[in-house]
């Protein structure tokens, strides 16, 4: 097996071999490797196929910008993960990875045929081709595209890993642990500011940490040595928290940032267990320093995508950081000085290399060094083509014309096994723009730079366009002192020597003798878009960068165009003949690099997926086999099936028992608001549609609450406890909103009212006992209470003690039966319930759930807000005009009740429906029509509530129907998928219209 690990570095432990599998084959790397560096050490460049043309692709970079080396990790159904960048994945023992987007394998790929028919797949190909005929979409195109496209496989089973979230607050957050970030963090922390420094790599130091060129020195030391000292120092600062393997995913307003910390991704399988895999840090920082550095640009020339073609600086990092050489005969193609550092480094390690430089000539310390080492430099030359299928094996260069628009002279063919390209540097302004910052364009080296416009964030270092070391350090120090309003002198006397770049020449699309249509000059490697595609888009009339991006899909892959956006812009500008700075950029959206769903969700999975509220009686319900229904956040008993019963059986039994003898319901979830104050009665007058002033102490009244638009909002019974003290109940789901709405009116519209509202929902537990025998059961529980209809009539309230404990008992009914609600302090709720059940035994007291409650009230035609109403129903629509006071001057929603729209006669109105076949149960939500033949069918309304009533032995339903009030007795039709159901409009009250049962 070839070994490209050619020397030792301090970041790789060669004594610790790590075995891993790639595409099923076992390889060895070393501790400290990434998957990419380990693959390169094994001589593997080819790692995937491109998305559209299925061209062989190799590792291009060494970081987050990697477009090609994305792989599928693991093969387990629950743990496999797609789209992992090999350049970021730290190697661990037992790692299993495979290349993506190639079938049957990376070396022989059927989709590769697309490469040969590629003239047929121009930009917008999918848009254009698959438009017609429409019917082909589902059957032909989509399956085909799905088969050949796609980036990796999602896991098919739940993620067993643990994720966590944490909120943190800092004075200063520094993003990026390169040289400028380290300086900024040190300055902040030493000035007593609580500081957080994050970096996505395992170790700090950015690209300086492996810098070893003699031309670049700080205080007479190699810059890497100097920086190691600095890192040692900041590790001692107590004010500074350093988080490595942590990347900022999103930078939101108000300096709220999300950072993802990788905690176990670098560990072998057995060490990952029971640990948090990733933690999402929710960071609030008073000030943010962005020091995210820059990314090297590729160059755009024909066949610039072959395996073995990398970014020049990445070759340098693989060599000096990982000890891996990317080839044995390397050519560097550049338009700037930084490739010379790579070249010199390679030369020192004995690796043959030469330089092709776009510039006519250039002079600087680095270039002098390269020249004196005898490195061959082709100035004013351009690479025009490359060769080699699975890996580059040679290339052609030609001389550039004076204006750089074309090539001149003869082709020179050079052999190589690796090509490094350097098209200059792109500052990583993602964080700056995500935070809302704008950009300036610097023509000099064609970069977008942060426009400083905020007191809360600043960019320093190369992400701010400062590229040489002297500039980086001096400017960082000055800016940080000013930004943090401090006076740090640590770097006052730092002596910096560095090579200064004096010459620049940028050409976005490099010239070629071959017509553009016949070239493959890739811009976006991952989405396979070429210079030709961009030009085509412009030719077809696209102008906006956002449109060109979508039409050609440039920059829309998982790397979000980190390598491609600038070239796309440059080519558009050149072609359209406009200045690049005037084009603007596409928007950089979070996340900066992809996040797993697990990280976003954190521990809100499984039993913590949703917040759960339980009543005090909950345990009893569980012990008695209740099925639960979620009502808001509450778990409410839905029905209590006995052995062998299904839901229907249980509900029929419960409903019958409640009317024949007695039933008991846990009503603790109803919202309860304690209302006190001298204006309490007036307040109720204003919030309910009916009148309250004359309600006697000890009496209860049902109230309907509207929105200002006149639509029903909530309902419930309110009890007058004393002159200025009421207890209001609300619906279960509406409790919080009602309280907040009432507070709103009190605080903003009627601050003059002396009223205090306090939620007591959880303070009381409520057992509601109904049925003809309810009085007897109450009598057993409260033997001293006079339960006669004279002393304790319907809609009244008594206080009594159960043993020593106060109970509030309301005689109110939601079932139409004689009914008592016993409220007790919640800590006794469970016990109260058990006592009720015990006392009710001889009367077959039957616990019933929400389904039976719904059925019983429907028999009586009582509405449920939110089921029979949907925010478009007025009291009149509900046939509840009786509850709207005509005398009151005003109440919430009153004026809206006679708006032209609310008085329309043909509004949807609540009616009862009876099916012609009494056994037929309607589906809730079913549409209602009068004529199934008309086209289009005239929809009259829909069914809101529907049950089989065991007490009436027939199906009953409530519905909202256009002009329903006037339709009593009329026949209507419910069209279902396979039949039409005939119904007759009826009264909404199906049982005991005379309310005899209330006092039976």
């Amino acid at each position: 097996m070839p070994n490209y690990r050619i020397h030792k570095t301090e970041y790789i432990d060669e004594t610790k071999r790590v075995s891993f599998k790639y595409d099923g084959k076992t390889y060895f790397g070393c501790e400290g490797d990434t998957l990419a560096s380990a693959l390169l050490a094994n001589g593997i460049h080819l790692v995937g196929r491109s998305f559209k043309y299925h061209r062989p692709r190799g590792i291009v970079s060494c970081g987050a910008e990697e477009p090609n080396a994305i792989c599928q990790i693991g093969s387990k159904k629950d743990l496999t993960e797609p789209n992992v960048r090999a350049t970021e994945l730290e190697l661990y023992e037992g790692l299993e990875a495979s290349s993506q987007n190639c079938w049957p394998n990376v070396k022989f790929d059927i989709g590769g045929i697309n490469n040969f028919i590629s003239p047929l797949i121009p930009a917008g190909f999918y848009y254009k081709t698959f438009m017609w005929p429409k019917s082909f979409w589902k059957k032909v195109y989509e399956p085909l595209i799905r088969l050949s496209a796609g980036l990796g496989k999602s896991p098919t089973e739940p993620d067993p890993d643990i994720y966590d979230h944490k909120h943190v607050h800092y004075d200063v957050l520094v993003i990026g642990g390169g040289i400028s970030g380290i300086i900024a963090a040190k300055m902040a922390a030493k000035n007593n500011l609580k500081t957080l420094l994050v970096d996505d790599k395992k170790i700090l130091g950015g690209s300086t940490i492996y810098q070893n060129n003699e031309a670049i020195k700080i205080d007479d030391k190699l810059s890497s040595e100097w920086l190691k000292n600095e890192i040692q120092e900041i590790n001692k600062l107590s004010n500074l928290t350093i988080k490595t393997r942590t990347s900022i995913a999103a930078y939101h307003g108000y300096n709220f940032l999300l950072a993802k910390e990788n905690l176990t991704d670098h560990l072998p399988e057995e060490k990952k267990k029971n640990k948090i895999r990733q933690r999402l840090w929710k960071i609030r920082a008073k000030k943010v320093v962005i020091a995210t550095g820059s990314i090297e640009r590729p160059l755009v020339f024909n066949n610039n995508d072959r395996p073995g073609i990398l970014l020049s600086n990445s070759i340098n990092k693989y060599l000096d950081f990982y000890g891996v050489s990317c080839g044995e005969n390397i050519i560097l193609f550049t338009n700037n000085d930084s490739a010379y550092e790579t070249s010199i480094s390679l030369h020192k390690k004995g690796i043959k290399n030469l330089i092709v430089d776009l510039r006519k000539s250039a002079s600087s310390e680095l270039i002098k060094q390269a020249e004196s080492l005898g490195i061959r430099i082709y100035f004013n030359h351009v690479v025009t083509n490359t060769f080699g299928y699975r890996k580059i094996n040679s290339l052609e260069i030609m001389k550039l014309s004076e204006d750089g628009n074309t090539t001149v002279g003869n082709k020179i063919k050079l052999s190589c096994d690796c090509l490094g390209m350097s098209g200059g540097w792109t500052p990583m302004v993602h964080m700056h723009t995500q935070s809302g910052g704008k950009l300036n364009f610097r023509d000099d080296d064609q970069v977008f730079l942060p426009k400083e416009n905020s007191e809360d964030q600043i960019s320093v270092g190369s992400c701010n366009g400062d590229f040489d070391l002297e500039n980086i350090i001096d400017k960082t120090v000055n800016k940080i002192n000013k930004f943090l309003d401090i006076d740090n002198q640590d770097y006052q006397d730092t002596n910096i020597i560095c090579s200064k770049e004096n010459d620049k020449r940028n050409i976005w699309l490099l010239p070629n003798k071959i017509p553009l249509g016949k070239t493959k000059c890739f811009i976006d490697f991952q989405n396979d878009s070429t210079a030709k595609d961009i030009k085509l888009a412009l030719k077809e009339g696209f102008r906006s960068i956002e449109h060109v991006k979508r039409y050609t899909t440039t920059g829309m892959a998982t790397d979000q165009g980190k390598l491609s956006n600038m070239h796309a812009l440059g080519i558009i500008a050149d072609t359209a003949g406009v200045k690049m700075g005037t084009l603007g950029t596409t928007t950089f959206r979070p996340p900066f690099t992809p996040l797993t769903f697990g990280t976003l969700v954190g521990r809100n999975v499984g039993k913590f997926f949703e917040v759960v509220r339980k009543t005090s009686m909950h345990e009893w319900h569980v012990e008695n086999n209740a099925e639960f229904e979620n009502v808001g956040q509450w778990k409410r008993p839905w029905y209590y099936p006995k052995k062998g019963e299904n839901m229907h059986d249980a509900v029929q039994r419960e409903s019958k028992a409640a009317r024949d003898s007695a039933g008991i319901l846990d009503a603790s979830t109803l919202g309860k608001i304690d209302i006190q104050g001298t204006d309490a009665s007036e307040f109720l007058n204003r919030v309910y549609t009916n009148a309250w002033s004359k309600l006697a102490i000890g009496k209860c009244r049902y109230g309907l609450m509207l929105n200002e638009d006149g639509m029903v909002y909530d309902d419930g019974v309110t009890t007058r406890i004393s002159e200025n003290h009421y207890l209001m109940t609300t619906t279960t789901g509406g409790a919080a909103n009602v309280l907040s709405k009432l507070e709103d009116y009190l605080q903003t519209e009627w601050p003059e009212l002396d009223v205090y509202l306090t939620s007591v929902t959880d303070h009381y537990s409520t057992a509601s006992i109904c049925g003809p025998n309810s009085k007897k059961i109450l009598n057993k529980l409260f033997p001293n209470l006079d339960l006669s209809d004279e002393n304790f009539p319907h809609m009244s309230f008594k206080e009594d003690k159960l043993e020593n404990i106060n109970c509030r008992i309301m005689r109110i009914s939601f079932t139409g039966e004689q009914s008592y609600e016993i409220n007790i302090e919640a800590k006794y709720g469970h016990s109260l319930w058990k006592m009720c059940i015990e006392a009710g035994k001889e009367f077959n007291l039957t616990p019933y759930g929400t389904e039976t409650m719904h059925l019983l009230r429907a028999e009586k035609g009582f509405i449920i807000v939110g089921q029979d109403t949907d925010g478009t129903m007025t009291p009149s629509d509900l046939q509840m005009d009786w509850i709207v006071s005509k005398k009151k001057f005003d109440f919430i929603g009153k004026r809206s009740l006679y708006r032209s729209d609310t008085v329309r006669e043909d509004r949807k109105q609540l009616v009862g429906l009876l099916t012609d076949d009494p056994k037929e149960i309607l589906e809730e939500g079913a549409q209602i029509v009068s004529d199934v033949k008309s086209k289009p069918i005239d929809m009259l309304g829909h069914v809101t509530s529907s049950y089989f009533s065991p007490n009436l032995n027939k199906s009953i339903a409530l519905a909202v129907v256009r002009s329903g009030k006037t339709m009593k007795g009329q026949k209507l039709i419910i069209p279902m998928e396979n039949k039409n159901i005939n119904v007759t409009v009826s009264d909404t009250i199906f049982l005991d219209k005379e309310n005899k049962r209330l006092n039976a």
Partner: protein
Amino acid sequence: MLDILHPKISNINKNNIDINLSEEKIKINIRGKNKEFFTKVGKILSIILPSETNTSSSNENYDVLWLSPDEWMIYFDENKNTNIFDQLYKDISTLNVGSITDISSQLICINIKGENIFELLSSGSPFNFEKFKNNVGSSTQTLVNHIDVILHHKSKNNVNLFVRRSFSEHLYEWLVDSSNFI
């Protein structure tokens, strides 16, 4: 026989976090604005209601937490003074000086103490505990794991957390789960 059932909250101690149910406490919500109100409450409780945001006052009998400019909560051991509610209700509510509401069962008090409690709370709360943890006596209302809570910094690294009864078991389970990952 009527007896008490508390939420299922048992003592947990791990990673320097100690979580306990701390019931047997009376909690009373107190509302009012005018001078008479302050005087009366002060006289009955022998304590001045804290007027400063996010603070509390305490004496040997009661702890009083600031909740809003016209709202406070007092809490105390139930064996201390059982008829204080009646006294307050009579002098404040009945005389229309303000509003007194018994919320003893509305809120469950979970005591959490130990070095890492603020780490624990921070995993589910956006509240900035920087100042809070350095000031004994601080109180605040905020969210923990999306659930409303009232926090009272009783003594160093010792916090009484008040949560609605219906949420208490869920929040407790979440706290226990979270304390595994400090």
